[in-house]
């Protein structure tokens, strides 16, 4: 009985999807949508994704885009996306940990939440959660003002090594956030004591950019996306990107590795679930996100927002998350910002 209902439901859904794709005949993603819907399991329903910061931010855009792609491709039923901002994401983290066993809840998170869980001395730890998948990442960039004397990353690093305290580094996040972790880890990699780094925190790219343009700081460390328009206009220079490979949008900019500095750093985003959820629930999430990752709509969204694909699901992501948690914790303890 139930199998038959499932088949019928899948058929109805498939027809519905076909109907939709017929309406939007010019859409590139229609075939993918049709085929996923005809898959063996029925769409998961009643899922919720929590965003641990405010509407309109990076996490929010990622969560809402992912939810929309999954709904449109009939991978899942409608997904409720809601915001629970606070304390760098740790208010949301606490909620996820409290919702032990709730297999319908997921939280969009990233490196920023990892850092905040340590600086905010959060009782809830990321190691308590069930890792589901990493979705995307963004490489960091080292940016200098147009008038800066530093023409390449090695000149900058040499000057920095000579007198770390004299070089002001600006970033768009509070201590513990990605823009703070980037220069601290870079300092460590090139042999500078992170404690001597003079880091100045700005409130997001909107405040960091004028500080660079106005020559108030020696260099800025942030995600590369924030600077693209300024780079094109020639008002700032990117000395290096922190990814493994060069960034297509900045193809003339070398990576750190090419410049002889063994250092990579990316700000990533992914989804975790509450502790103690059943294997079946975990599989529903992993399968849904894997299918979403395969759709053309998701690839289009990645291209639109300039996200780099970094899909990694289940235990693989779990291992990655653990390693990140470890290295962030070490550097913040070293700086006296976490216990």
């Amino acid at each position, binding site marked *: 009985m139930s199998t038959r209902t499932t088949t019928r439901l899948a058929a109805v859904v498939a027809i519905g999807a076909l109907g939709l794709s017929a309406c939007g005949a010019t859409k590139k993603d229609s075939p993918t949508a049709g085929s996923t819907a005809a898959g063996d399991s029925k769409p998961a329903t009643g899922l919720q994704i929590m965003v641990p910061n*405010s*509407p*309109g931010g990076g996490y*929010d*855009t990622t969560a*809402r885009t992912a939810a*929309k792609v999954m709904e449109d491709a009939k991978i899942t039923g409608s997904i409720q996306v809601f*915001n*629970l*901002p*606070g*304390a*760098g994401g*740790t*208010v949301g983290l*606490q909620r996820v940990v409290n919702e032990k066993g709730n297999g319908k809840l997921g939280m969009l998170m990233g490196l920023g939440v990892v850092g905040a869980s340590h*600086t*905010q*001395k*959060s009782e809830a730890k990321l190691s308590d959660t069930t890792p589901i998948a990493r979705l995307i990442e963004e490489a960091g960039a080292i940016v200098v003002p147009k008038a800066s004397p530093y023409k390449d990353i090695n000149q900058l690093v040499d000057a920095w090594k000579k007198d770390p*305290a*004299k070089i*002001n580094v600006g970033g768009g996040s*509070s*201590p*513990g*956030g990605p823009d*703070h972790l980037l220069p601290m880890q870079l300092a460590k990699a090139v042999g500078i004591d992170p404690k001597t780094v*003079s880091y*100045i*925190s700005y*409130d*997001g790219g*909107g*405040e960091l*950019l*004028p*500080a660079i*343009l*106005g020559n*108030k*700081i020696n260099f800025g460390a942030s995600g590369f996306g924030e600077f*693209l*328009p*300024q780079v*094109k*206009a020639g*008002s700032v220079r990117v000395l290096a990107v922190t990814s493994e490979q060069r960034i297509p949008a900045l193809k003339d900019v070398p990576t750190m590795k090419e410049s002889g500095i063994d250092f990579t750093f990316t700000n990533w985003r992914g989804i975790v679930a509450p502790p103690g959820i059943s294997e079946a629930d975990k599989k529903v999430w992993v399968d849904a996100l894997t299918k979403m990752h395969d759709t053309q709509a998701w690839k289009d969204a990645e291209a*639109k*927002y300039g996200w780099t694909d970094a899909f990694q699901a289940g235990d693989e992501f779990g291992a990655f998350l653990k390693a990140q948690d470890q290295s962030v914790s070490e550097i913040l303890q070293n700086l006296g*910002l976490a216990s």
Partner: protein
Amino acid sequence: MDNLNNLIEGFGHILTPINLLYAFVGVTVGTAVGVLPGIGPAMTLALLLPITFGLDPTQAMILFCGVFYGGMYGGSTTSILLNTPGESSSVVTALEGNKMAKAGRAAQALATAAIGSFVAGTIATLLLAFVMPQVVAFAIKLGSPDYLAIIMLAFVGAAAVLGSSRIRGFASLLIGLAIGIVGIDRVTGQQRMTFDLPQLADGIDIVVVAVGLFAVGEALWVAAHLRRKAGSVIPVGKPWMGREDWRRSWKPWLRGTALGFPFGAIPAGGAEVPTFLSYVTERKLTKHPEEFGKGAIEGVAGPEAANNASAAGTLVPLLAIGLPTNATAAIMLSALQGWGLDPGPLLIEKQPVLVWTLVASLFVGNTMLLLLNLPLAPAWAKLLQIPRPYLYAGILFFAAMGAWTVNGQAFDLYLLLAIGLLGFAIRRFGFPVLPLIIGVILAPIAELHLRRSLQLSHGDLSGLVGGPVSWVCYAVIAVAILWPLIARLIRTAGGNGGPGSGPGQHTTISTEASA
């Protein structure tokens, strides 16, 4: 006059029925979210964002700007009528606006806010069209030392509004500073004064503080006196602004615009500081100082013009170099990116039609706001005829909803009640409210810029003085503080200094009046 031609072309694009419809929907929605406390334009835009990707970018931006301007305007309505500021930028409006409403002059207060917003919006949009590149070049040069100097100037201005007793004034300011400091310290990322409550980690929202102090505090006050005193009925006033109202409003409108526009355009400006500076300025320059605190129309006209001018100013760095200076602008920026447009230094060159249509749409939106709100002013004012128990029940409902919507957590409701009790207490013991609000708004900003300036200079105190802006500010502060002394010297030397109208004059009067 290339810009003028472009602007005329922009008008040509916007004056189609469908674009006008989007502008109309935008200002209506904006006014509505402005009226509802807690829901700001930023959140509205974020929620509208997914819907608008189907629209043409120009139309969507017209819609967004309508929401943005409408929100700035709508916030004043609840401030004036219910003493419940909808947005942080209309907190100052409540000070005089609600007093006017209680004196039966709600319609005049709403009208001066509407016309002031229109005048400020129009002038600021003109400025936006013609001085955009120069403003941006100037804004980028400002650094933390300059911001610090501006805020110091505001603090000195605060001395003028400490009220009748200096002790109470300073106590009130310090309570405000203490509330303002709660939350994550931006320099070290550590929590301060949060008592291990994660809900306090992001600080106490200014809307919760203002609504608690004003609306809840007052409701408690009224409730406490309901049985002892017969309720004074709010008189029914004239529906329109009289000649005297116009005469007293136009200068504050212009001054408010002059203050608001540059603050919107500079990266760390915002709409709160200029509304407050405008209030202090009007209070000092007014010919009716005795009316301040009892419902002076200047105290509504100036700040309302300032917050709208600041809204237009925000678009300057956004359109000129792709730099968002507040949350609303940041969402507009991400919308532009979503359409594959490159907001940035090249936007004007690459998308002149979009930019100029947008500027033209601001004019249209502004006119629509005036047409929408001016006739409504007398109608809104009738709201105050509701019997007091019902009226205050309504106010409390709005206040609670506002506090809830900020973060969607029950904790904020308890906080609202606690701050309401504080509001009741400061009323009971005659503490002035304004210094407290100033403390909450300015303390965190002042601290941030002070510490950032010192970080940038590696602890060297000379880092506290920045560019020309900071010199001017410190010079004005020096004159304001030393003025009583200078005035006395001049009087003794010349024999007839007379009752001068220097900036320090009213400071002395208001702080020492009945000390």
